[in-house]
């Protein structure tokens, strides 16, 4: 059950990661990226790496990368003509599918090579520790999460919201 869950998460993770590349809308890409991060942390948690899971969640690397990517794309967008963009887009159209295939192949390989699921600890006893870690030892980080989410959202608002309106204006 748990193994399946892990594999599912991994597969979803690969898909969402691929989706990040596919979406033309950066906001959607960002959301996908965030989902990827969350999935990673779930996997980590399931594998018993509570600390790592926690950190992954905390870092929310996705949010950081959002702004990272967006800034770059903001620059490149103005320079790139639409045609180039379409070419660019079409060139990578097959990539996500390729990646999904690769991911599944990788999983298969893992299973076939005798990846032992027995080593994965049971959930219930660890959960208490997780709770302990999250709510007691890392409660500072919870606060940070809130701020980080806020920061990300405001960054998106500042950097993209008005681009869209500009685009709308252009369209109109």
């Amino acid at each position, binding site marked *: 059950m748990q193994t399946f869950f892990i594999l599912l998460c991994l597969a979803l993770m690969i898909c969402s990661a691929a989706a990040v590349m596919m979406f033309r809308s950066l906001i959607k890409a960002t959301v996908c990226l965030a989902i990827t991060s969350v999935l990673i942390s779930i996997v980590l948690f399931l594998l018993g790496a509570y*600390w790592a899971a926690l*950190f992954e969640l*905390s*870092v929310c690397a996705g*949010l*950081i990368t959002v*702004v*990272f990517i967006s*800034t*770059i794309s*903001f*620059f490149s967008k103005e320079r790139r003509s639409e045609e180039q963009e379409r070419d660019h887009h079409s060139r990578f159209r097959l990539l996500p599918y390729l990646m999904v295939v690769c991911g599944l192949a990788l999983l298969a390989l893992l299973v076939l090579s005798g990846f032992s699921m027995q080593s994965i600890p049971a959930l219930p006893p660890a959960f208490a520790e997780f709770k*302990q870690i999250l*709510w*007691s*030892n*890392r*409660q*500072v*980080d*919870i*606060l*940070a999460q*809130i*701020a*980080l989410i*806020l*920061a*990300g959202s*405001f*960054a998106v*608002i*500042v*950097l993209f919201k*008005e681009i869209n309106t500009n685009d709308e204006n252009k369209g109109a």
Partner: protein
Amino acid sequence: MPQNLISATATAVFIVGPLLAILINNLLPRTLAQKICLKVGIAATLLQIAAVCSCVWLFFANSSYHISFSVFWNMSAQPGAARFYVDFLSLTVMLAIGLVSLVSLLTANESIKDKALNFSNLLMICMIGMNGLVMVNDLFSLYIFLEITGIAAFVLIALLREERGLEGAFKYLAMSAIASVFLLASLALIFMETGDLHFANVAALLSSPAQASQPLLLMIASLFFITAFSIKAAMVPFHGWLPDAYQSAPAAVSVLLGGIVTKAAGVYAIIRVLSGAFSGVLAGVFSHVQNVHVVFAILGLVSILYGAIAAIGQRDMKRMLAYSSISQMGYIVLGAATGSVIGLVGAALHFFNHATFKGTLFVNAAALEKQTGSTDLEVLPCGLQARMPLTAISSMLAFFSTAGIPPLAGFWSKFLIILAVWQSGSPLMAGLALLASIITAAYFLRIQRKVFFGQPDDSSNEITEVKGSLALAEWLLSIITVGCGLLFPALLLLMQSKGLF
């Protein structure tokens, strides 16, 4: 009970205050929010200042000079739990944060109109980030708050979405990302060794590196750590992003950046990891690692000299101030690197003083930009003292303070730092750091000569003094600069009475 009171105040104000401000701003109708958002922000900053003052008072009243507490609920203390920790160093920095944020808001009131809401929101997040940064006692939490501050800061730089601002923001972002990578890598290595990132535990490990299982890895961890924070603090040669970012940021944002963000994000962390002397509870991570002290001392000194010399040749006032910041942050790091009480007191005071005087100077730049449309020294009209007396005088006071000319505040803190460096057995370093003041004076004299101190010509007849919140900001900061300078002996006595010396 008082301890709880203190923790409650601190928590409520330092973290929840800005959060509340964000909530208020965003829950109100948009048109109303646009109007009052800055005032809400100002209220939050004032609240922070008041909270700092009350904390200081409570500390004195209880004769306990540090406190650690949990955020939301006080669970049984776990060993190595990440909690908030407040002492005088944190309070000093938080006072500076409150002050500079206030000034930044006042500046924004005059310069940023249509994006006020966004500005206010981001500023509040930035404040949260910095406040958190200052209060944590765990390297990982430190990292997270660092990121929050960073994100807020670079979005702020790009706030107006002009090409220049975006470019500056990008450079900041790029370098920040590198710093993050290094920091994470460093944390990972340390974590490998300790299984914990609490300051005290890390410090215990690092104080006896021979006992570590892998000393080489530990050294690499130190290297990454130093690199990360040097980038954040813009120590030469990790400073490349800073002049571009400061110069390209909107006026109000450059006040914030120059006044506090870089220092809180980079320099504060350096002070914190180097300090061991402030209290027994919160040992500095590197407080017993002599070679890290030496490295930071050298970086500090190089920054002092480089920043000062590079500033002389700049045309743009904001860029000049940016280099000046590099130089001044060098002093703070140098002071912290001594590891002695005097050095740390000096570093903390210089931290605060730098916030005030560099804040003043950036506000002056904002005023000039607003009134004349430029911050280019070759373009600005001459002899503006006649037209903008307040700006001229406040810039002069800030200049004296920066250059360490007594009796202003900057002198005392700088002097303490240099005295500490001297006493730590490197008179040559102390001498060089002291003599850099003369170069500092030289570039400020250049500003004065080009802009304020001269014969006004007819082209500047139209120019008038700034009014309203900008003027208020100039007044406020000047008074603090002068007041801190004159009251320094009293402060010294106070510190003595609390057994610091």
